[in-house]
């Protein structure tokens, strides 16, 4: 049997490279199949098929999509392990060949086990000091070259062993159709296999522009690898393309939901059973809503740009691709908004998009629900103190700024028109985001039902105050009771500045009522068309709730 030395010297890695490529291709194919299955099979069925039979069939078909994701992940893991193993072994081969060449150039003999011998030194006269000096020099070089050969062989053995250990952590039963936790297992497989071969995750710059540039210069293979093996990290990165984030986040969601439902207790030691159940519920709500949107026509497709399952849940979802939109709106909701609000929030951004689309004369419009912060809770007369102070808004502000910056970065060199809309306490968050740092970077800001924007003047928002739009229903109790107090001056009133637009709806939550001008005026602003404007309100004395 040939020695390791002989085999490494002669090894052709073409087969290994081809195998790695083939597994990667399987993964990419699975990604494509899953996307086509979503948009051409389940999506249209959701739109047209209702009832118990539909529920049963769609449950099965959703499981098929999950299995596509499992194979996508497992195949990419195998491909990455093979490629990494090939890389390190080929590197070891190069080191070995270089050491052998150097040895041969210097007159050493190399045997089949990679052992160097030096016939020249042996032939030198023992009583000649110069010859012995030469022999000592040759002896040192031989030791150095022998070390290099031994190290190369050791590196190759390690690469092989790491590869074997990584592949051994993968279990074919993951693709068994009765395996309930296959998606979760595939995620764990990635962690184990990458650890075994010593691969770290992507080192993504935090700055959205830098992240966009980082992504742009990656090879297509690296992009596919990162998206598949590190979906949560890629999906959460502001500045990356929206379709990439969407695909990654949907995969991460599948894996997290599956783990939360079927994973062992060791994965959930840090949280209570109630919290685990809450996360499962949040993830189901989100997934179900996304599934129902899979048949949406072009321009109405949903992009999951970020999510968090913990506590009340968070989600950032775009309707229409913001990377290519001429006009983009980001809606920041207010108090009591949780994952359960996703359906309604999507309904609202859908209406805003329809309106803006028409006022923009057909230019592409994307609208985004940004539940990317921990919105305060308030119910009935039991007002949580978080509603009354700026804390949650200031906590969420850097993330909102980061997101808007990422939206711009993903749009590239062109300057798309971006509007950020805040409702209720969401307007406080928008205000904090605009007032802090270098500003929000929005072209227009809209606030409706605002109790205050953390500042007393529109001119404090790091933008042209004439692009700060305020909608205020005459009977909005939140404006009446809470503005001019702890959250800043009433934006609807004259001293604040900015411009008020016509609102024909009532109360605090009617700004998107069906058949309302309030809605259409927001659509106009999103499209860059001035709305029907009304005078600023007179300065008023606040009525503190009794």
């Amino acid at each position, binding site marked *: 049997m040939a020695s390791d030395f002989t085999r490494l010297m002669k090894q052709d890695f073409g087969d290994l490279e081809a195998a790695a490529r083939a597994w990667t291709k399987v993964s990419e194919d699975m990604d494509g199949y899953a996307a086509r299955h979503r948009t051409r099979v389940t999506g249209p069925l959701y739109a047209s098929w209702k009832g118990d039979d539909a529920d049963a069939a769609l449950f099965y078909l959703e499981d098929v999509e999950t299995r596509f994701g499992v194979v996508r992940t497992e195949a990419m893991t195998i491909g990455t392990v093979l490629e990494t193993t090939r890389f390190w072994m080929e590197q070891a081969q190069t080191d070995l060949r270089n050491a052998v060449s150097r040895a041969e150039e210097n007159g050493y003999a190399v045997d089949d086990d990679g052992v160097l011998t030096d016939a020249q030194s042996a032939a030198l006269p023992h009583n000649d000091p110069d010859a012995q000096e030469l022999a000592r020099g040759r002896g040192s070089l031989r030791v150095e070259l022998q070390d290099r050969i031994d190290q190369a062989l050791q590196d190759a053995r390690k690469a092989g062993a790491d590869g074997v250990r990584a592949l051994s952590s993968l279990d074919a039963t993951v693709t068994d159709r009765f395996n309930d936790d296959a998606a979760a297992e595939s995620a764990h497989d990635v962690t184990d296999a990458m650890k075994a071969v010593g691969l770290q995750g992507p080192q993504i710059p935090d700055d959205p522009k830098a992240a966009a540039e980082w992504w742009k210069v990656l090879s297509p293979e690296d992009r596919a690898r990162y998206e598949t093996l590190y979906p949560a990290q890629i999906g959460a990165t502001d500045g990356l393309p929206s379709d990439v984030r969407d695909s990654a986040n949907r995969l991460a969601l599948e894996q997290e939901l599956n783990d939360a439902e079927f994973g062992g207790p060791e994965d959930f030691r840090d949280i209570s059973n109630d919290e685990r159940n809450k996360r499962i519920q949040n993830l189901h709500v989100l997934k179900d809503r996304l599934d129902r949107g899979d048949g949406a026509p072009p321009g109405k497709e949903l992009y999951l740009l970020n999510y968090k399952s913990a506590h009340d849940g968070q989600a950032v979802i775009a309707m229409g691709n913001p990377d290519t939109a001429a006009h983009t709106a980001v809606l920041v909701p207010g108090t009591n908004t949780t994952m*359960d*609000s996703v359906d309604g929030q999507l309904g609202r951004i859908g209406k805003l998009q*329809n309106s803006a689309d028409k006022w923009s*004369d057909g230019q592409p419009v994307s609208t985004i629900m940004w539940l990317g912060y921990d919105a305060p809770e308030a119910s009935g007369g039991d007002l949580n103190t978080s509603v009354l102070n700026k804390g949650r808004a200031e906590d969420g502000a850097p993330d909102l700024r980061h997101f808007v910056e990422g939206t711009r970065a993903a749009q590239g060199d062109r300057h798309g028109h971006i509007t950020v809309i805040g409702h209720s306490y969401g307007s406080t968050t928008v205000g904090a985001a605009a007032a802090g740092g270098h500003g929000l970077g929005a072209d227009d800001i809209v606030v409706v039902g605002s109790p205050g924007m953390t500042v007393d003047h529109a001119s404090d928002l790091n933008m042209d105050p004439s692009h700060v739009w305020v909608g205020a229903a005459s009977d909005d109790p939140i404006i009446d009771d809470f503005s001019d107090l702890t959250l800043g001056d009433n934006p609807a009133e004259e001293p604040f500045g900015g411009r008020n637009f*016509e609102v024909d709806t009532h109360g605090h939550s009617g700004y998107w009522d*069906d058949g309302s001008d309030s809605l*259409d005026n927001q659509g106009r602003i999103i499209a860059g*068309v001035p709305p029907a404007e009304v005078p600023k309100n007179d300065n008023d004395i606040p009525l503190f709730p009794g």
Partner: protein
Amino acid sequence: MARTGPLRLALFGAAALLLTGACMSDDAKNDPLPRLSRARATQWAEEHTARMAEAAGVELDRASAEAAFEDCVGRKDEVAHDGRYSLFYTVYAPVPRERHTDVARRLRADFEKEGFRITGYREYQDDRLTALVDAKDDETRFSLATGSVSPTRYLFSVRTPCMIPPGVTQQPQ
């Protein structure tokens, strides 16, 4: 003001008696919704926009017409999937820039004649501060939004409140 114009008669023949109060507040969220089929609502919107165009003295580009049936969203983000909808009907008309103010004036006069409340009005100032006329029927809560979208195009739109087709069971919220 008496409001008996032909537009209103056409509009409310099917649904007027049911069009009050729905979706207005939490207390009223389970009130019966006005019933109108999607086809009938679209037909009405077509007739209505045709009439608006006639009053404005413009010719609609019917190929640009679009009827978007939107989900009704409650004030606490509730969405009922029982068939209820809100119609957003839009159609463009080619109108040269120099006529935008005239069109706005004619539409305002027409809406006022029909008894609608004018909620927004602006005459054409420049390519940014464009013309618009918005109107509302407070009784039925239909709204009309019209205005310049470019120097050569004018939008006519109709929005309805939340409605539900006949024969569909309204699910409680």
